[in-house]
């Protein structure tokens, strides 16, 4: 970050946030004050009250429209409902602004392709918000596997379980699905990035066994990669309301020479408070969102470290991960694996 400090006087990357529908927006907004040379210019949201509230909370301006905000920034972070990612990306790209889009990139491959195409046509960069790439535990796991710590990877048993987020996440018209589309993409992206391999086949068992509603909340997905590795991913919203934290990101690898496992959010205190209704976990690990937003600011400024061990996920990366989630829905319908 000292590299950035030298440029403070000349460089100011102006960032706007389009929509606070996805709660990750608050973490991204909270990261920007910690990044020298970056400014959160404002927030625009179709929910005007939310825009005002969030602008007050983060000490920035609530803009009356996406267009007005786009006129004042270099780049935007899009945190709308999933189905609006395409529309907002198109607005930003046409205004020649770089985009960091919340995951999943899109709810159809057609949308993902259109987003990638319009950003390319307008000469702007498109990134997908996969902050887990920036967590130090993941970076160590990636380095260890690449150094051959466990030999050749055979299989991966992974989870991204969570509590049901409710709200628009369980409205398929807004989210494009349930737990599978919400929680498949992070770990899929990590496995692709870690192994440099592409998914070739997807199987899934999806159910609505938790809430018994019209969306999937239990998802057991099997992904086969082009390097022969097979992985399973539990993407279920299976943490009850009484659970002591939101969820987890875990990867357990079995290799020819050993095993390696990562529990990304294991760096916790257990807090027993008589004020709260239940014990809770307080995480003291690194803020991976801050590192991702820093990388986005660097990418916009053209100062990114091309030799960094991990890089921002691109639009293509976002598409590849979303493709697995979408294939999971097709596999679940037929009860047989889907070839990508």
């Amino acid at each position, binding site marked *: 970050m000292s590299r950035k400090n030298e440029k403070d006087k000349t460089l100011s990357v102006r960032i706007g946030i389009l929509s606070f529908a996805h709660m990750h927006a608050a973490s991204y907004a909270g990261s920007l004050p910690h990044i020298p040379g970056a400014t959160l210019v404002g927030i625009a949201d179709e929910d005007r009250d939310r825009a005002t509230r969030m602008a007050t909370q983060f000490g920035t301006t609530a803009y009356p429209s996406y267009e007005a905000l786009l006129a004042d920034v270099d780049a935007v972070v899009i945190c709308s409902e999933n189905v609006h990612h395409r529309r907002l990306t198109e607005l930003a790209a046409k205004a020649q602004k770089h985009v960091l889009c919340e995951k999943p990139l899109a709810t159809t491959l057609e949308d993902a392709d259109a987003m990638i195409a319009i950003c390319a046509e307008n000469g702007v960069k498109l990134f997908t918000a996969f902050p887990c790439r920036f967590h130090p535990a993941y970076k160590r796991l990636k380095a260890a596997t690449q150094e051959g710590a466990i030999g050749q990877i055979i299989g991966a048993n992974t989870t991204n379980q969570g509590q049901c987020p409710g709200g628009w996440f369980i409205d398929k018209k807004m989210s494009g699905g349930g737990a599978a589309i919400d929680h498949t993409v992070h770990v899929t992206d990590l496995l692709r990035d870690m192994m440099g391999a592409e998914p070739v086949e997807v*199987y899934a068992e999806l159910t609505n*066994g938790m809430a018994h509603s019209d969306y999937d909340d239990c998802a*057991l997905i099997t992904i086969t990669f082009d390097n022969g590795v097979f992985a399973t991913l*539990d993407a279920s919203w299976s*943490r*009850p309301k*009484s659970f002591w934290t939101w969820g987890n990101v875990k990867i357990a690898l*079995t290799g020819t020479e050993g095993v390696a496992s990562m529990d990304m959010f294991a760096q916790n205190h257990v807090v027993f408070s008589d004020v709260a209704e239940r014990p809770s976990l307080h995480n003291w690990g690194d803020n991976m969102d801050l590192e991702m937003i820093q990388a986005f600011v660097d990418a916009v400024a053209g100062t990114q470290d091309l030799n960094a061990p991990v890089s921002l996920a691109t639009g293509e990366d976002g598409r590849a991960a979303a493709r697995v989630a979408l294939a999971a829905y097709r596999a679940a319908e037929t*009860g047989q*694996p889907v070839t990508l």
Partner: protein
Amino acid sequence: MGFRVGIIGAGTMGQVHSRAWRRMPDIELIGVYDIDATRASRIAADSGVTAFSSFEELVNTVDIVDVCVPTPFHAEYAIFALEADKDVVCEKPMGRTLEECDRMIAAAEASGKTLMPAQVLRFFPEFQSTHDLIRKGAIGAPAVVRTHRGGGFPRGVNNWFADFAQSGGVSLDILIHDFDWLRWTLGDVERVYAKTRHTDGIHEDDYVLATLRFKSGAIAHVEGTWMDAAGYYTSIEAAGDNGLIHYDSRETAPLRVARRRHDSSSGAGIHSESPVSADPYYLELRHFVDCLTAGVAPMITPEDGRAAVAIGLAALESSRIGKSVSL
């Protein structure tokens, strides 16, 4: 009323069972048979019983036959014993093929004698307790369940576990425990999809990730391994529409002993233990005897044993053909 017991097979399980039988006052452990006479003599001497050189003779001398030989030989001995009008307890997995299981079931029916597959996991307190909690509604309706079992490769007599034609690898030999427990807890399985490192041949490295869908609508993820350098453990996580149960043997061992090493600055051998006063193998065999005495059927039926084998074979088949397999 007492029973005379004979053990067929003097390997690991034969020894474990002989210790359990000898603790029962109403049981007379008569003897042991093994195709390897030396092995039979060793366990017989340890137990103070007779090593039989003929299994026919042993079978004809006892009331209960305890089949502890490698999997593909279960049917042969179990059927011989049933036809000789003996009650039979048979190690898991019940058979290497469904055809073997069917023949055993038919022999049990024809003889009217009792045949119990030794799915001992049902007598492990942590698994029994999880089953009971779920069945009592502690988590509501079960929705998604996860289990883990495994560690390093087990070297048995003549290394038979490595021979998939005999053991069926991780899918059949060790995951049979979880398949039976899951079916006991969640009901019948509708379909199986699995990825395994191997499906046949001779291998000491096997790793399995299986997904099960139950007729109840519940789904389950089952991991099994002979490739975990970090050591053996088991775990269960069961999520339902009203809660979650979590169990991990690595977190629940109340005893841990590490001895200081003077020749090295690093890692002494650490021994951790989860002692329980009632040996699950004892409880399992005791249940069998109590059922014989009371004239009732054991909680584990021959059909249960067959159903667990069917799930394990479906996992192997799924991995071989790359498709899900419906049961």
